[in-house]
């Protein structure tokens, strides 16, 4: 088992290197220049050698290959460099915002699972009835509604019903759980609805497929009660594909909360990413992309391990 994990992590390295290379060179092709934007952006006039000095300070005057080597060396030391815009280390910039995004993603995932698994099961067991149709409409609607628009609707609903808006300042959960949850539950719901929709469909179709399998027929022939068949025999098999989806969606959420954060005025990773793209803040963009990619790979590994824990066919060769 340990060897398997080590093996997978080793295999991940070429992928990460590939991501690093692509990101680096693609960004350098971007038109526009961060120094210009930063120093001349608000209309002030600056002399050319101030610009040159700033470029030298940021290391932008060196040839590309040298910049690349510098960066790769930094990566090997797990040093992601400093943001070109603010000058603070990338890790610090990201760290401050990571908490919000991560918490929303986690809450959305939990909401999604708690809604989707019972609903999907219900729809599969009552296939063809109005319950099934209702759940399917719910699910398709969830796929169709843009989560940021849903966020707007939630804000409107809050305004009309309670008269207040969701709070804007962030309090970490250990400081003040109530305030923290009160702020983050709304974006989590907006995103969680979509998560629930995707998952419901998968749970439903997976369970339907499993219920048609031969071993379910064997269980019925043994005289087992239907509820035990669903719980013990069917769900354990049906949820296996769902595990993969849950993991992947969670990973995607981290990068995909961009717009929702904007709607709810949250200072999260998404907002940071958009800002850094607009500002051509290379180191920050590169650092964040590497983080996203690493996270994705780690998530995949976790999914595989969970799968192995649940499915004996994978565990015992």
């Amino acid at each position, binding site marked *: 088992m340990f060897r398997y994990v080590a093996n997978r992590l080793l295999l991940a390295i070429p992928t990460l290197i590939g991501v690093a290379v*692509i990101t680096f060179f693609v960004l350098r092709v971007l038109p526009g220049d961060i120094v210009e934007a930063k120093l001349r952006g608000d209309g002030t006039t600056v002399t050319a050698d101030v610009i040159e000095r700033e470029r030298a300070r940021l290391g932008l005057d060196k040839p590309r290959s040298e910049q690349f080597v510098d960066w790769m060396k930094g990566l090997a030391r797990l040093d992601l460099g400093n943001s070109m815009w603010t000058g603070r280390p990338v890790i610090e910039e990201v760290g401050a915002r990571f908490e919000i995004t991560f918490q929303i993603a986690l809450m959305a995932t939990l909401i999604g699972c708690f809604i989707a698994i019972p609903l999907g099961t219900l729809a599969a067991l009552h296939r063809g009835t109005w319950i099934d149709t209702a759940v399917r409409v719910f699910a398709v609607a969830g796929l169709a509604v843009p989560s940021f628009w849903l966020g707007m609707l939630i804000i409107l609903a809050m305004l009309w019903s309670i008269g207040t808006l969701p709070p804007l300042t962030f309090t970490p959960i250990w400081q003040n759980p109530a305030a923290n949850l009160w702020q983050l539950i709304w974006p989590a719901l907006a995103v969680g609805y979509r998560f629930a929709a995707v998952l419901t469909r998968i749970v439903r179709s997976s369970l339907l497929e499993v219920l048609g399998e031969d071993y379910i027929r064997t269980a019925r022939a043994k005289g087992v009660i239907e509820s035990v068949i669903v719980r013990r025999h069917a769900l354990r098999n049906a949820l296996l594909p769902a595990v993969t989806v849950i993991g992947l969606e969670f990973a995607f959420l981290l990068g995909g909360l961009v717009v929702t954060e904007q709607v709810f005025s949250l200072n999260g990773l998404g907002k940071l990413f958009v800002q850094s793209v607009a500002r051509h803040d290379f180191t920050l963009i590169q650092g964040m992309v590497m983080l996203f990619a690493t996270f994705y790979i780690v998530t995949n590994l976790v999914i595989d391990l969970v799968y192995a824990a649940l499915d004996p066919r994978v565990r015992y060769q």
Partner: protein
Amino acid sequence: MTDTTLRPAKRSSWLRNPVVDFCIKQPAGMVALLVLLVMMFAGVFAEYIAPYDPVRNNLASMLQPPSWKHLLGTDPFGRDILSRIIYGARTALIIGLSSAFVGCTIGAIIGAASAYFGGKIDNAIQRCIDLMLSFPLIVLALVVVAVLGRWLVFGIDINLILAIAIPIIPQVARVIRSSALVIRNLPYVDAARIAGYSNTRIVLRHMIPNLMAPYLIMLTAYIAQAILLEAVLSFLGLGVAEPVPAWGLMLSGSASDFFEEAPWIVIFPGLAISLAVFAFNLLGDALRDWLDPKFKS
């Protein structure tokens, strides 16, 4: 020699028309199809249907609630929302359809080729797909848009279409590849190889036609995704630019400042997006159900 009997083909030729058959067997799909036809009609004939000019500012009548004069109200620049939604259908459909089509077709070709050739080529392509999938969807689209800038052809932003198509390619390639792998191991493909046919013939004549079903289903699903993605990008200011009417655009910028006082400026464009995506997803589902039993022996 025994003369084996044939059972006569029963149904009349009119009923065998696939479109009619689809509508009969999948009423939900038929509804979706109608909705989409209405949408396309609106997009094509926008000039004749829309009551007002969608781009001309008219600050005198800004932020008006829905009334008989402006059925869906006006936005912060005084533009009629209904007209902008009708014109927005054109944008959504053009960008959604083309990017999904480009992405799905390229993805399908890559997936099918990867499965057919197998071996080293397959492994190499698999690695590339995995690499592309390591980037979150939006990140990829954002980066592509930022890098490519804008490239307008007949008023359509080709780079935006590419930006949406590119993240779609690896996802489609992966799914089509697994379907193609199944087909490749079926005896009739073996029979084609034994008969000495060229690889081209085998892929085009024997594999691709049998991949049409998953391809069409993915196409409808990704048209829906593409429309959503376009809305997201426009919302972020990286998609379609003002003053071109686009549903996502209608939700961003000044709209986000004013929507608490004038909710109609976001409700209706959002509904339009949802309806379009909903209809495409429903169509995809209905297509999948319709194609399923027939192609399962």
